[in-house]
């Protein structure tokens, strides 16, 4: 696939956000093509989660533009982002602990009966179908999600993200709370979704994860993009150099955060 031949699914240009005096994201550029996984790497506090929260509508950017399929769009809150098919699996999972899996799955998009009341039975039936695909062992539909294990909660969060015709999926440390078997399961899921043509942002500070799953990698440091490159054009050591030193290797396109050399 030649990324230059088609319009990017997502393009964020010159995006900045500051909290108080701290520039959490500083004139960042990032793009994503259909059927592609882009890994977003960086230290804690490098601005990667922040950049992605701007795309998912959790934060409102101070400046910059967002394009979806080449069209400039206005994303001011999570509802706007969902409208454009941008779905997010958050690091903290973002589930309402006190309600059950079906209610979480449909939170904000409840199915209603023809009288305008909640159609819990349909939602539960639908949840059983979705969860059956993602995690066939899942049985605890009646319990508040606080009672579930980390992996089960993760599958609820992912189910919620992919159930509503997502075009762009943002996964913020999707495997942080999981054991090895569940991590492998999430990896399989990412490959499957990618083959279905979704664009996926994968945020992680584990570069092994990212090298296994991503097509391209963008590295951030101190709120700025150090560089972006294809995984096969770089070594893990070079990427580590980008993360730690901000040194952009020859295989990558340098960004404003690259160390002057």
């Amino acid at each position, binding site marked *: 696939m030649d990324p230059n031949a088609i319009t990017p699914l997502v393009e964020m240009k010159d995006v900045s956000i500051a909290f108080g005096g701290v520039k959490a994201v500083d004139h960042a550029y990032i793009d994503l093509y259909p059927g592609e996984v882009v890994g977003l790497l960086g230290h804690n506090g490098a601005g990667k989660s922040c950049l992605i929260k701007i795309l*998912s509508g*959790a934060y409102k950017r101070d400046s910059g533009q967002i394009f979806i399929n080449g069209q400039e769009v206005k994303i001011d*809150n*999570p*509802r706007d982002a*969902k409208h454009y098919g941008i779905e*997010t699996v*958050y690091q*903290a*999972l*973002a*589930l*309402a*602990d*006190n*309600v059950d899996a079906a*209610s*979480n799955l449909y*939170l*904000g*998009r*409840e199915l*209603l009966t023809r009288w*305008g*009341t*909640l159609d819990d*039975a*349909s939602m*539960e*039936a639908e949840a059983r179908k979705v969860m059956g695909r993602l*995690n066939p*062992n*899942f*049985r*605890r*539909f*009646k*319990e*508040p999600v606080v009672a*579930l*294990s980390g*992996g*089960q909660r993760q599958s609820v969060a992912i189910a*919620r993200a992919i159930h509503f015709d997502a075009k762009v999926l943002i996964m913020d440390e999707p495997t942080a709370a999981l054991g090895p078997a569940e991590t492998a399961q999430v990896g399989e899921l990412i490959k499957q979704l990618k083959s279905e043509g979704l664009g996926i942002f994968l945020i992680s500070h584990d570069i092994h994860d990212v090298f296994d799953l991503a097509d391209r990698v963008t590295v951030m440091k101190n709120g700025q993009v150090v560089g972006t490159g294809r995984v096969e054009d770089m070594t893990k050591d070079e990427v580590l150099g980008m993360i730690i030193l901000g040194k952009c290797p020859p295989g990558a396109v340098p960004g404003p955060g690259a160390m002057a050399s």
Partner: protein
Amino acid sequence: MTSAAPSATSAAPNESAIRRLLRATEVDTRMLGMIGALALIWIGFNIITWAQNGEGLFLSPRNLWNLSVQTSSIAVMATGMVLVIVMRHIDLSVGSIIGFVSTIIGVAQVHILPAYLGLDNPAIWIIAVILALAIGAAIGAFQGSLVAYIGIPSFIVTLGGQLFWRGAAWWVTTGQTIAPLDDRFALMGGGPHGSIGATASWIIAAICCAGIVFGLYAGRQRRARFRFPQRPMWAEYVIAVVGCLVVLGATTIVNAYPWPERVAAAYAEANNIPVPEGGLVISTGYAIPVLIALVTGLVMTFLARRTRFGRYVYATGGNPEAAELAGVNTKRITILVFALMGALAGIAACIDSARLDSATNVLGQFDELYVIAAAVIGGTSLAGGVGTIYGALIGALVIQSLQSGMVLLGLDSAFQQMVVGLVLVGAVGIDTFYRRRTAKG
């Protein structure tokens, strides 16, 4: 990865009959605990009054009927306070809203409306009620928007509201008591005339019983449509029979309370009814404020359980950030919840002022504390996300039972306050202990 949740039909061996009954009927054991506590209070007071007077005064139709009327205003507000607390907020202003709203609708129906509509116009009470709902909701919405958009903690906003609206209530009437209120409006306060009588009470009881049976049937149909596990049939029968017995029992009790002799005699004279030997006996039946409280409870349960609004309230209370990220407009929900609370305080203002047949600026003083106590005793967690409407209704009944019982015993009011305070702390203490134990497993 997970153990299968126990399905409603599977029976584990070595299970006691009671445990099996509880599981099959899917009854909330917390609610049973509350009802048990209530029964203990009722029977306890009855025994003590029996020891004092030679007859049990507490469990008499007269006292229970009075208890139902006294509970209704707190009960109406407690249903709203549950949602406020579930959202991790608090509303300390409801008592003062009662004072403010009641003086306004008092002035409206005594001084203003008769001038345009004429005295005794049937539209007066309707306008007064609409006014009460509108003012209450507007005050709530205003306070809610301060909480949602400016981010002032609800404790502070409503503490300010408590002072502000109480002061405003004085200012409306310069401290005067407004009385008497419109005759039709006063029916909302209960009393012999503000009750619906035996026949209507039985009709309502019949409708309730039919509703219980239909609700169970519809629930079964719904579960069957999606092939979800069903309760065993005998458990459905147990629920239906117990539910109907409660309804019929309550109706029997309120119908067993006759009009006071003098009121009945006056009524007989006014309507040319011959008074039989031993006086005219007219059953009081359900009081109108009690019906208002019950309908409010039903409507609020529906809102909380079956609508998007309710779902968002609980989800926001459980994890505000998650709800916001899921696309819930939590600011709007916050304003709606406070507006609803204000409107319910407006209803309570109608009930309270109608019951006294007068409006004063001190009406509803300290009510916010009893309302919060009712919600909390009813199992609403101040940490947010947890609470039920029926729990708050039972909580209101518990508090009012304590007060009413202590009045019957002739305990002075200082002592009554101490007891209610102890019970509040004790109830929450027991509940916290219980929750921690069940959470451990």
